[in-house]
């Protein structure tokens, strides 16, 4: 009895809906990759010989530590975006890293082992110039921060301010550098451009001005760019126009002495601004007397200052990069020089005499799909025999970090370009070779009965072979312990799985590097760096041909538009292998205003991409005769729209047969009142399964499914909280007809919009109630369809019914997207990226303008949830459980081969991939499905029927005999 009750209770527990992820499902269908962004400052933890850490401060306002053995993040701190969290300076001393953040707003000290905050203080306002550690008697106790008008000294132990002093004549002198070499003085170095250098020496003890000198330097405009301190306080500046070095002893009151580079036998490359590189291994001691002078893009000279004279130690030509590194008492110089086209070699040289150290060559292979090396960070260490060993972290133009060990073993690579994904697509993987063979059989022209039979037989044989091979592998793998079985994904064994759940994620990053990532594991399968991508370019990725057209390879086209000139270039590539296509894209001499992918295909099954230039002329890609002919036939039914948000103008055009265009409609939203912030159409690959909704009384309310509908969101020009508003217009993109026009008063952006099926959901900030609100608009044709066979924008005279409802949302949001499935049967969810790093899967059911305020029998029949003004965030709706995705910027959804399953990729600083099942896995058997039970029942039934049939026969026979 007790057991029966227990079973009953268990049943109840099982039946109650559990939507979250089970513990054993963690990481099974999802993965996350964390990035830091382009590195700005980096320091190796050199205090302990066996240290495995490198600290990084990046342009994405991230401060992190990496494990140098694996390249994994040890810890990471993500600060605010924008200038507020900008990391201005990073200084490291022992176990502490001191950061100046937000243009000198904050001074922070971190403990680098565990990434804990030691202290943080708010600095006085003023724009940050420079900072340095200040030592005295071999110990470093202070940090000096130089701002536009003040110099302050802080204790390293707790951040407290020791003193703060105004800089003399700060209105004329531009102070740019602060320097200290451990003799009890802090120097602030400033310049009056093209006039003189101002040097102020402060006492470390009390901030008293010890000395203030100004030295004539009419050739100098920027101290930070041209000057450095070498040896025992010798300020050395380089003057490119006179090709000379100027030196000034900071401790003595003297004039600058000029040393012509020519007298040293050196020559500056034409048009190159020489750069000085010095090193100060210990802030409590003066910098080394040796320094590098870069004379050209590929030439460096190691120089030494010896009692006021400069001597050349060694000339490095060609050399890409140089870097100093110190371990113990030894300082070495690492020089990267080209070896051949595909590799570079790095060598160590003694800083003291410029001699090459033995056995220190390191080969660094250049990635042909990557950028050139840009920076080099060297970690030097003493080996057991007191020789210097080293490892190098190379940063390249495409933001890649490569960590290399002698003699050239790559320990890890981090693709930091992925911290800034701009756009992406998910492409189906190709069929396996055997499947493709079978497919190819149908594609080929028939050539005789016999050969066809043979071909069929051969392909069947190949299939059989593959099956046997598969069985053998299964059997073989089953004997091995589980962890030995590696399912490594490489570009060779890529193939579509049964349910098309594994896809190729083609990601485009802001740096111009393209990636192909396997969606199942997150492995980077290919990468391609596009050089000459202008900064701030706009990208648009279109899939022209999918993998469905074997033997034609799939084809993607990336439009890269320069923001300033508007000129566009095309990059055509194979999304599976990342290789540049043989198809030559057309040269586009005119700026491109609009691009549209037509459902038309050329004879090679590539969809036609139309490009509209600023003369409103249209060019097609590919532009074969076949395509042009098709375009001529279709021209009168090809419409497109252009938006000029600076003038608030939306205009519609129709294509003419000669590929010119004509303006057919115009809507102008005056920019004095409101400006267009976003325009959302529907996704072309979206399917809607159900044409209407069944009401409580069994009648049908038909949806208004206009594929050409655009949702235009505007924000008021007036920002006053009483008068600001958010406008939403629904415009037909073909006829320019305004279907619906509404304003949300006392609201402002940022507005996030999703437009799909017959609904538009948008989110805004309500200035009146000071909260985030969601609003949903649904469009219905009414109880009967106007023309149920086909939808045409030109023939829909009746305006749809518009229903709208709003809700309170308890959090601000970063991005908004809707799930997408193969056939559109599955109910829809909204995927909401929250600033907290969570990704919420909110059922669209909750955003339904038909939610009744008063529950009636009919609404209950329809399964409508009674209206509640607040949408509640339920924790089980988070699809990324504890896998926080920092700074979500976009969510990409793609259908899989299973109707119930939608693939989701959230990208921002991190990348997170998972699957969602908005209506549960209704088309998938559970993992623990009892095959044994069902088959035994089936067999038992089968035999029972057989036996009973036999028995019945016998009985009938017997009766007949009677």
């Amino acid at each position, binding site marked *: *009895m*007790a057991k029966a*009750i*227990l079973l009953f209770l268990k049943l109840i527990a099982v039946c109650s809906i559990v939507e979250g992820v089970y513990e054993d499902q963690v990481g099974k269908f999802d993965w996350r990759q964390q990035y830091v962004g382009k590195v700005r400052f980096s320091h190796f933890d050199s205090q302990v010989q066996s240290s495995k850490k490198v600290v990084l401060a990046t342009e994405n306002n991230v401060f992190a530590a990496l494990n140098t053995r694996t390249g994994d993040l040890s810890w990471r701190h993500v600060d605010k975006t924008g200038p507020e969290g900008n990391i201005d300076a990073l200084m490291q001393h022992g176990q502490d890293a001191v950061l100046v953040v937000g243009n000198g707003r904050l001074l922070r000290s971190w403990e680098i082992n565990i990434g804990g905050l030691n202290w943080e203080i708010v600095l006085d306002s003023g724009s940050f110039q420079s900072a340095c550690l200040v030592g005295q008697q071999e110990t470093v106790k202070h940090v000096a921060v130089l701002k536009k008008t003040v110099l302050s000294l802080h204790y390293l132990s707790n951040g407290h301010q020791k003193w703060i002093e105004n800089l003399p004549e700060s209105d004329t002198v531009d102070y740019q550098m602060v320097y200290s070499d451990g003799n009890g003085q802090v120097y602030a170095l400033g310049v009056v451009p093209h006039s003189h250098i101002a040097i102020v020496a402060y006492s470390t003890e009390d901030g008293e001005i010890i000395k203030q000198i100004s030295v004539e330097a009419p050739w100098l405009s920027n101290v930070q760019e041209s000057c450095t301190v070498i040896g025992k306080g010798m300020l050395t500046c380089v003057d490119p126009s006179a090709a000379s070095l100027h030196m000034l002893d900071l401790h003595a009151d003297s004039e600058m002495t000029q040393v012509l580079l020519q007298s040293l036998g050196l020559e500056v490359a034409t048009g190159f601004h020489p750069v000085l590189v010095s090193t100060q291994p210990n802030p409590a001691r003066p910098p080394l007397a040796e320094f590098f002078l870069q004379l050209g893009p590929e030439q460096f000279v190691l120089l030494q200052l010896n009692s006021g004279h400069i001597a050349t130690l060694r000339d490095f030509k060609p050399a890409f990069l140089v870097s100093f590194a110190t371990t113990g008492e030894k300082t070495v110089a690492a020089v990267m020089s080209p070896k051949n086209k595909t590799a570079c070699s790095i060598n160590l040289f003694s800083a003291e005499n410029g001699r090459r150290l033995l056995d220190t060559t390191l080969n660094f292979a250049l990635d042909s799909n990557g950028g050139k090396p840009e920076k080099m960070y060297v970690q030097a260490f003493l080996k057991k025999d007191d020789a210097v060993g080293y490892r190098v972290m190379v940063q390249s133009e495409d933001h890649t970090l490569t960590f290399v060990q002698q003699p050239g073993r790559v320990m890890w690579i981090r693709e930091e370009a992925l911290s800034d994904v701009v756009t992406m697509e998910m492409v189906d993987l190709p069929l396996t070779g055997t499947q493709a063979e079978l497919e190819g059989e149908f594609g080929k022209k028939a050539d005789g009965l016999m050969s066809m039979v043979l071909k069929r037989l051969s392909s069947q044989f190949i299939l059989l072979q593959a099956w046997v091979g598969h069985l053998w592998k299964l059997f073989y793998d089953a004997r091995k312990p589980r962890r030995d079985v590696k399912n490594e994904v490489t570009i060779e064994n890529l193939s579509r799985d049964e349910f098309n759940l594994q896809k190729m994620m083609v990601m485009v990053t802001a740096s111009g590097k393209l990636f192909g990532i396997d969606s199942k594991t997150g492995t980077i399968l290919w990468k391609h760096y596009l050089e000459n991508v202008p900064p701030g370019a706009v990208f648009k990725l279109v899939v022209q041909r999918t993998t469905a057209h074997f033997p034609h390879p799939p084809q993607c086209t990336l439009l890269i538009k320069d923001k300033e000139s508007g000129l566009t270039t095309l990059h055509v590539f194979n999304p599976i292998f990342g290789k540049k296509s043989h198809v030559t894209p057309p040269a586009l001499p005119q700026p491109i205003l609009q691009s549209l992918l037509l459902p038309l295909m050329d004879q090679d099954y590539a969809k036609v991409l139309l490009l509209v230039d600023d003369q409103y002329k249209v060019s097609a890609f590919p532009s074969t005769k076949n395509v042009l002919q098709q375009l001529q036939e279709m021209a*009168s039914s090809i419409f497109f729209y252009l938006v000029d948000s600076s003038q608030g103008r939306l205009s519609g055009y*129709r294509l*003419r047969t000669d590929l010119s265009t*004509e*303006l*057919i*409609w*115009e*809507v*102008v*939203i*005056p920019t004095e*009142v*409101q400006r267009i912030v976003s325009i959302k159409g529907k996704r072309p690959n979206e399917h809607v399964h159900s044409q209407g909704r069944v009401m409580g009384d069994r009648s049908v309310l038909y949806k208004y499914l206009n594929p050409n509908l655009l949702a235009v969101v505007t924000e008021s020009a007036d920002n006053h909280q009483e008068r600001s*508003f958010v*406008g*939403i217009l629904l*415009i037909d993109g073909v*006829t*320019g*007809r*305004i279907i*619906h*026009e*509404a*304003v*949300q*008063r006392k609201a402002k952006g940022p507005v996030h919009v999703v437009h799909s099926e017959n609904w538009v959901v948008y989110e805004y900030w*309500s200035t*009146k*109630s000071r909260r985030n*609100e969601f*609003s949903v608009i649904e469009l219905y044709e009414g109880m009967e369809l106007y*023309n149920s066979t086909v939808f045409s924008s*030109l*023939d*829909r*005279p009746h305006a749809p019914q518009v229903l*709208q*409802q*709003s*809700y*309170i949302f308890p959090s601000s949001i970063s991005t908004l997207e809707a799930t997408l499935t193969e056939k559109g049967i599955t109910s829809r969810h909204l995927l909401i990226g929250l600033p907290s790093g969570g990704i919420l899967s909110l059922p669209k059911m909750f955003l339904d303008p038909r939610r009744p*305020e*008063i529950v009636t029998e009919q609404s209950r029949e329809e399964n409508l949830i009674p*209206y*509640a*003004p*607040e949408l509640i965030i339920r924790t089980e709706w988070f699809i990324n459980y504890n896998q926080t995705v920092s700074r979500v910027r976009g969510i990409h959804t793609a259908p899989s081969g299973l109707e119930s399953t939608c693939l989701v990729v959230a990208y921002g600083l991190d990348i997170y991939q998972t699957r969602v099942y908005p209506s549960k896995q209704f088309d998938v058997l559970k993992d623990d499905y009892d095959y044994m039970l069902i088959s035994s029942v089936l067999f038992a039934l089968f035999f029972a029927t057989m036996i009973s049939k036999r028995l019945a026969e016998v009985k009938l026979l017997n009766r007949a005999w009677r």
Partner: protein
Amino acid sequence: MARPQAFATFAALCAVFATKGLQPVHGNLGRKVSEVVDSDFSGVSLPLQHSFEVDDVARWSGRGSLVLRAGREPAASLSQNQLSESDRTRLKEVAAAGGLYRIRVPRVNLQAERASEVEGHLTAFVRACAMVESRLSDVITLHTDVSGFLIGVSIVTLPGSCGGSGESQEEELEEQPELFNTTLSLVAPLSAPGPETALFLERLEMESEKKSKNPQEQKSFFAKYWYLILGGAIFLMASNSAQPPAGGGREQS
């Protein structure tokens, strides 16, 4: 600017006499207003132009004149010229060629003191064949933004279909009317609803009141669920008294 003004006076006249040349249509958010309103109808007068050409190069000519008034109760009225014989034949030709029938109105701010015309026009189109087949009956909608700027115009014909059976088309073409049968409306943006907290709270209150009134719901927790508690207690006792199986440390999965 002489022309539109002349039309405005015409509009007033025809309201009284309903002459054959002009055909007044008044709209107020889609519904027709009584013609008495016309006497104090002081709005902005705009020319409504149309164009239908076989070569689809726009050549605008006057179709009529609009009188618009924005504000709390936006209203619009229209007086239209009749379509001349040559225009009708041209429209048929355009329809046969698959051309477009377009209309345009100037951009204007209806709420400014003087109707300040801004550079440019708002245009819309409908297929010429639809215009022919609907026998010149169309619906023109003018949209304004919150500040009374005219932002868009749209035209649809009723019915909107095009390319019916050939014969009837011929017949229709023969007896094509001279007058437009237009429904005009001026639409200002709607105010989107915010979250309905007040109503919801009211409903909650009502429900709680209902509950408090209903004596059945007033029963205490034990009174309501005594049988469940009793059942639970018996079950607990039963499971306690049952001997735990040997080596019972192992949990059932």
